[in-house]
């Protein structure tokens, strides 16, 4: 529990540093899956952002100056992600995952329409469920597809048609098969 509080605190600190560079973020990954009723073990908290390489380098320097252990992984031209910064400490791992120049629209829109936060009073916004599904569909692979099936099965109140519409707007394919598999 203590570690958990600490990772929230670290992520909120990272969010403040992102904000100082005018970079907005939403919580994605396994923490977002847990928020939407698919609870599985995770030791890291992922923040989805749109930051180009120059911004990521600058962020990495700022985080190092704040005392964090930081590793910047820069993408090659074919990478579906725009870069990842691993921020480590006694709290665990906070990952900053950039979708800049790849799939920025989903992060921009998620930031804009997000209404949930990770805990009361926190500025750590959670990616909305339809956008989380879109991100998983973009990621592809068996694990991401399995995550989508679980999310659909565990959120019976979710308006599947709105998810279809969102994924179509992003030209993402493959949702219908997963909807059928989830028994929706």
């Amino acid at each position: 529990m203590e570690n958990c509080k600490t990772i929230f605190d670290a992520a909120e600190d990272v969010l403040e540093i992102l904000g100082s560079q005018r970079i907005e973020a939403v919580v994605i990954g396994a923490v977002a899956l847990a928020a939407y009723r698919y609870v599985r073990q995770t030791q890291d908290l992922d923040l989805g952002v749109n930051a180009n390489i120059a911004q990521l380098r600058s962020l990495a320097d700022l985080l190092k100056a704040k005392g964090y252990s930081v590793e910047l992984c820069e993408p090659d031209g074919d990478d579906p992600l725009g870069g990842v910064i691993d921020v480590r400490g006694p709290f665990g791992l906070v990952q900053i995952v950039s979708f800049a120049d790849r799939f920025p629209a989903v992060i921009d829109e998620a930031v804009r329409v997000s209404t949930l936060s990770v805990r009361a009073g926190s500025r750590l916004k959670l990616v909305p469920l339809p956008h989380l599904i879109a991100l998983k569909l973009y990621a592809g692979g068996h694990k991401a597809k399995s995550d989508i099936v679980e999310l659909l099965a565990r959120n019976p109140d979710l308006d599947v048609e709105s998810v279809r519409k969102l994924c179509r707007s992003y030209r993402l394919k493959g949702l219908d098969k997963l909807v059928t598999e989830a028994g929706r």
Partner: protein
Amino acid sequence: MKKPGEKTKRTLPSGRRSACADASLRGEIDRVSRMTVEERITEALTMGSRFVALKPTSAKD
């Protein structure tokens, strides 16, 4: 044609959804639905430490 006294071969019921596994999943979904967002996230982040005793050990130990 089955001969008198011949046992019926039972095949494994694979490729079919399990009703009891579905019922178990529904129970888990109900449990998680009653939790707050913060409680769910906390459970995911602390799961590793709660089940640390289940880490595999060598058979020689």
